[in-house]
C-alpha cells in the first residue's frame, strides 16, 4: 500500500500533456536540425572504467577503455592493465580477455553480496586507480507490458514500473530478441534490442515531464524479452541520473546545466564501479495484443 502511495508514473504527461504542450510550443515551429560543430581540443583523461558486480554467481567482467575525441569514434581499449577486486580478506583477480580487447574477466566465478564493501584496484601505465562500492537489495519488478502497434503489426514496450519511487531506485534493462523467429533471421535485419529504464527518487523535469523523443523499438510477436532489474545505491543512482542528463535528456526543453559526471574512480579515472542486486524476468511476447 505504501509503495503505491510513494511511487507514481507520469505516463499521462507523455501521452496527452506533452503532446498538447509540444503542439503548442511547436506551433512556433520549435525544431531541430543537424549542425557541424567543431569541438575544442583538450587533453582527455586516461581510462574509463565500466564495472558492475551483481549478486549472480558468474564470471564478472570489467571493461576498460580510453575516451575519444569524436563522438562516433570507437573507443580504444586499455590493454595490459592489472585488475583485481578485493572485499575484506577476499581477492578476486581479473585477467584480460583474449577475445574481447579491453575486457577483463574474473579468474573464477563469484557473487557479490549486500553485506560487503568491494574495492576495485587497477594498475595501468604506472598509475593506480581505485574505487569502492557496495550493494543494496532489489525488489521483484513488474513485468513489462507490450503495446500492439497496428500500423506496423509489431509490438512496443510499455513500461509500467514507476519512474518515481521514494523507497527504491532501480535500473531496468530489457533485452529483446527475435532472432529465433524464422522470418527475422537475416543478417541485415534488426533482431535484437537492449534498452534501459529507470526508477529514481527524484523528480527530473527532463525525465518525468518533458523527455526527448526517443528511438522506438518494435518487435514481433514471439520475441523473448528478458527484463533485468538492478538495484541502485544512492551514489550509483546519482551517477546514472547524471549520465541520463548528459545523454538521453540533453537538449530537452527543461534542460539542466551540463557538467562532468562524478564517478567513483580515483586519480582522474572516468566511469563507475558498481555492485547491483539483480532479478531477471523472461517473457515471450504473446500473439494477443495488449498483454
Amino acid at each position, binding site marked *: 500500500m505504501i509503495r503505491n*502511495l*510513494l511511487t*507514481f508514473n*507520469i505516463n499521462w*504527461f507523455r501521452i*496527452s*500533456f506533452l*503532446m*498538447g504542450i509540444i*503542439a*503548442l*510550443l511547436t*506551433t*512556433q*515551429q520549435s525544431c*531541430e*536540425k*543537424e*549542425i557541424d*560543430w567543431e569541438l*575544442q581540443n*583538450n587533453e*582527455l583523461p586516461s581510462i*574509463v572504467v565500466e564495472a558492475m558486480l551483481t549478486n549472480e554467481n558468474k564470471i564478472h567482467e570489467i571493461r576498460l*577503455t*580510453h*575516451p*575519444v575525441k*569524436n*563522438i562516433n*569514434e570507437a573507443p580504444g581499449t586499455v590493454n595490459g592493465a592489472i585488475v583485481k577486486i578485493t572485499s575484506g580478506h577476499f581477492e578476486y583477480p581479473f585477467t584480460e580477455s583474449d577475445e574481447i580487447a579491453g575486457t577483463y574477466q574474473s579468474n573464477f566465478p563469484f557473487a557479490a553480496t549486500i553485506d560487503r564493501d568491494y574495492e576495485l584496484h587497477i594498475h595501468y601505465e604506472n598509475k593506480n586507480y581505485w574505487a569502492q562500492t557496495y550493494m543494496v537489495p532489489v525488489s521483484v519488478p513488474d513485468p513489462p507490458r507490450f503495446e500492439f502497434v497496428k500500423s506496423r503489426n509489431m509490438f512496443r514496450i510499455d513500461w509500467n514500473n514507476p519512474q518515481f519511487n*521514494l523507497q527504491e531506485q532501480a535500473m531496468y534493462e530489457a533485452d529483446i530478441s527475435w532472432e529465433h523467429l524464422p522470418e527475422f533471421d537475416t543478417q541485415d535485419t*534488426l533482431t535484437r*534490442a*537492449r*534498452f*534501459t529504464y529507470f526508477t529514481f527518487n527524484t*523528480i527530473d*523535469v527532463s525525465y518525468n*515531464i518533458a523527455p526527448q*523523443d*526517443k*528511438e*522506438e*523499438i518494435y518487435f514481433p510477436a514471439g520475441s523473448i524479452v528478458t527484463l533485468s532489474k538492478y538495484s541502485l545505491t544512492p551514489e550509483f543512482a*546519482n551517477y546514472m541520473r*547524471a*549520465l541520463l542528463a*548528459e545523454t538521453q535528456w*540533453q*537538449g530537452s*526543453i*527543461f*534542460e*539542466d*546545466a551540463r*557538467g562532468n559526471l562524478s564517478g567513483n574512480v580515483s586519480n582522474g579515472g*572516468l*566511469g*563507475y564501479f558498481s555492485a547491483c542486486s539483480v532479478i531477471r524476468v523472461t517473457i515471450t511476447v504473446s500473439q494477443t495484443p495488449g498483454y
Partner: protein
Amino acid sequence: MKKIPLLILFILTNFQVLNAQGRLLNQKFSIELSNVLLEDVLYEITNQSNANFAYNSRIIEPEKRITIRAKNETLQQILETITEYYNLEYSVVRRQIILRPAPEKEKPLKSYTVSGIIKDMNTGETLPGATVWAHNTASGTISNQYGFYSLTLPEGIYDLNFSFVGFSRENMEVIFDRNKNLNMELELNTETLGEVTITVNEKVEQIQKSQMSHIIVNPMSMQAMPEFAGEVGLIRNLQSLPGIKTHSDGSAFFFVRGGNKDQNLILIDEAPVFNPAHLFGYYSVIIPETAKDITIYKGDFPIEKGGRLSSVIDVQTKDGNMKRFGLDGVINPLMSRLALEGPIVRNKSSVYTSVRRSNFNWIYRETAPNVDLHILDLNFKINWSINNKNRVYYSLFHGRDNYTNHTGNTGIRWYNGTSTLRWSHIFNSRLFANATLYGSTYNYNLLVGQGIKWESEIRNISLRYDLSYFPNPELTYKFGLSRSQHELNPGNLMGLEENPYIPRLTVGKASKTLLYFSRENQLNDRWSWKAAIRLPLWHHTGPARIYSFNEKYQVVDTLLYQENESIKGFLNLSPALSVRYRVGENASFKFSHSINHQYLHLLSSSISPFSSFEIWVPSGANIKPQRAHQTAIGFNLYLPSVKLEIIPEMYYKKMFNQLDYVPHANLILNPLFHSQLRFGQARSYGMELLLRRTEGRLTGWLSYTWSRVFNQFDELNHGKEFPAFYDRPHDVSVFLNYHLGKRVNISANWTYQTGSAITTPIGFYEYNGSKVPIYGTRNNDRLPDYHRLDLSLAWTLNQPGNRFNHSLNFGIYNFYNRHNPVSINFNKVKTKDGNFVVPANLYGSHEILSTQKYLLGIMPSISYRFGL
C-alpha cells in the same frame, strides 16, 4: 605717548554728546493721536520733549496718515514706530532729530508651494512622470507615481508649463503668493500617440537631478512595437534596451547588467511578482495595455523599492476612467483580452478591470483532445478620491497557467497573485505620504493524480509607509519604513499520508524590517546629488529543519526550529550615492554608486529558456544574502533641434554570495538541497549607448551594449573564473517607427546579440552503451550569434477622432526566418523519416549527430484591437 591725552579728550567730548542724546531719547511721555499727518505727530513730540526735527517734506508721502497710541514710552520707542511706518530712519545731532528715507532693505522674498495632481483630461487617470516647469527659471519638478507634484518658488508670478509625453502641453500663469493646490488635466494628443515608446521630455533631464540608469516606458504607445503572436510583450521588448539581455526566443527570463534571472524585482502596484511568465515564457504576465506607467531601473533603484541586485521593473496599473465608461480589447488567434473601465462616482472613484484568456485549444484539439491548456489574467483596480488630500486604491492581479487534463487532477498549474491596498495622503503642499499594504503569492503545482501533487510556494505580505518631503525645488527628502513577512514552501509532496519515507522540506519563514532615508539636493544649476540609505533587518525563523554541513557537504548536525524561533538574522546597510553635473542646457554627466542586498533566492539549475520547477528560498543559516556593488557613470545629451537623445553609460558591478550548483544538482524533493549549492562571486562591466528620437514621423532608437560577465566559484571549474551563460558581449537593437499617414503606422525592430556562453564537450566516453560527454572548462564555447528582424503594420480602421476606434495589426516575427539556437546537442540520431531522436537500442550502432534546437522561425500574426 602724546596721543593719549588727545584720545582721552576725544572720549570725554563724545561721551558728553552721547550722554545728551541718551537723555533726549530716553525721556518718557504719552501721546495719543488718531489718523493724523506726520507733521502733527512731530509737532506734538516737540511740545512734549523739546526735541527739534529736521527733514525734507518731499520724502514723506503727503497724505499718509498715522494713528499712534503711546503711554509712557520713551522717545526712542515712539520714533521707531513712526519711522518704520513711514519707511524712514532717524539720527540725533545735539537736540535735533534728523529724518531721512530709510535705505532700501533687501527684503527677503517668501517662498510658496504650488502642488497638486496631474491627470489625463479624458480619463481622470493620474499621470506619473509628468513635468512641471517654471518658464525662464531653472526650476521644475516631476510628478511622482501617483501624479502628485510639489513646486516651491519665491513669491512672484510664473509661467508654469505642464507636459507629459503623448499629451498636449499646458501653460498657465500662476501667482506664487501663498501655498496653493493646483490640479492640472492634460489632454491626450491623439496625433502623436504611437510615435513614442520610451518617453523623453527635454526638461526631464534638467529636473531629474541625479537619477540615472533608468528608462521610462510609455505603455500606451507600446502598440507601435512589433508583436509576437499578436501580443506585445514587455519582457520581449526589454531586449531592445541597452544593458538588458533576454535568454532566447520564447523566454521570459532576462538579465540586467550581468545579474542573474532572480535578481530582477518585478512589481505590479508595489507587489512583487515572482514568475512573470505564461506558457513557460512565451507570454508575459505584464500586459502593457493595463499599465499606466512602466519604469525600468538598472541601477540607482528607488530607495523604497530595492531588495534585488540587478533591476526593478515597476509597473503601475491603470486606475480607471473617472469620467466615462470605456471598453477596449484585443482578439487574435491565440489570445483575447477585454477591458472595462469607468466611474463609480464621476470624478470621485473609478474601476478598471481587464481579463485576458488564451484561446489556443484549436492547436491541440486533434492531438490531445483530453487536455485543458490555458492561461488567464485578471487585473482589477478600484480607486476613490476622498478629497483633494486623500485617495485610496485597491488593485488585484491574478495570473494563472493551467496545463492539465480535463478533470484537473494531473498536469502542471501555476499561479501568480498580487493584491495592493494603498492610501495616498497629502499632508500639505510639501509633504506627501503613502501607506501601502500589499501581498503576493506564487504557487507552482505538479499534479500527479490520485490527489497527489508536488507544490512549491512563496507568499509575501508587506506594510509600507513612505513619506516625500519637498521643502523647495532643490531639495527632496524621502523616508519611510516597511515590514514584510515571507512564507516559503521549497517544494513538497502534498496529498500523501505522513510517512517517514516522504521527504519534508522546510525553510521556515522570514521577515524584513526596512528603514530608509534619502536626500536629493540640487546645489546649483550644475551640481546635484542624492544620498540614500536602506537599512534592512532580515530575520529567518522557524518552523524549519536546518542541516549543518561539513566541508564535504555531509550533514553533521540537524537543528529543529519551532514556529517563529530565530534561526539567523542579517543587518546590512545599503547605501547609495548619485551625483549629476550639468553641462549646458541639455547635457549632464552622472555618477552613481550603490550597494544592494538580496535576501530571497530562486533555486534553479536549469539552462532552459522556459520556467520550470522553481523554488524560492530565504537567506538564512546556509545561504548568505547576495550583495552587489555597482558603480556607473553616464552622460545625457539632448539635441532639441533634431529631437535626439544620446545616453551613454558605463558600469562596473561586483557581486558576492552568488549562487550556483554542483553539476546535475538535485534540488527537487531533496531535504539536503543546500548541499547542492555553491557560493562565489561575479563581476560584470560594460558600456551602453542609447540614441533615441521621439518626435516626428520617424521615431525610434538605436541601442548598443558591450559587456562582460564572469563568475568565480572556488569549488566549480577548478576555482577558475568563467563567463556566465548570459555573457553576450555585443548587443545591438534598432527600432524604427514610421507614420505613413494618420491611419497607418509601420515599425521594424532588428536585434543582434553575441551567442550565449555554453559548455560543449572536448571528448566522449562509453558507459553502458551511452556516449557520455567529457567537458573541459565551464562555458568554453558559444551558441551562434542571435539576430532577428520583426516587422509590423498597424492600420487604423476608423476616422481619427471617432469615439469607437479599431485597428488591425499585422506582424511578422523573425521576418527572415533565422534559426536562433537555444541548445547544441550531441545525442541524436536521424530516423528514416528525418526526425532527430535519442537512440534507445544499446545494441545498435548509431551515428550520433550534433544538432541545434531552435524555437521560433518566421511567425506571422494578426490581431484586431478596438476601443470605445
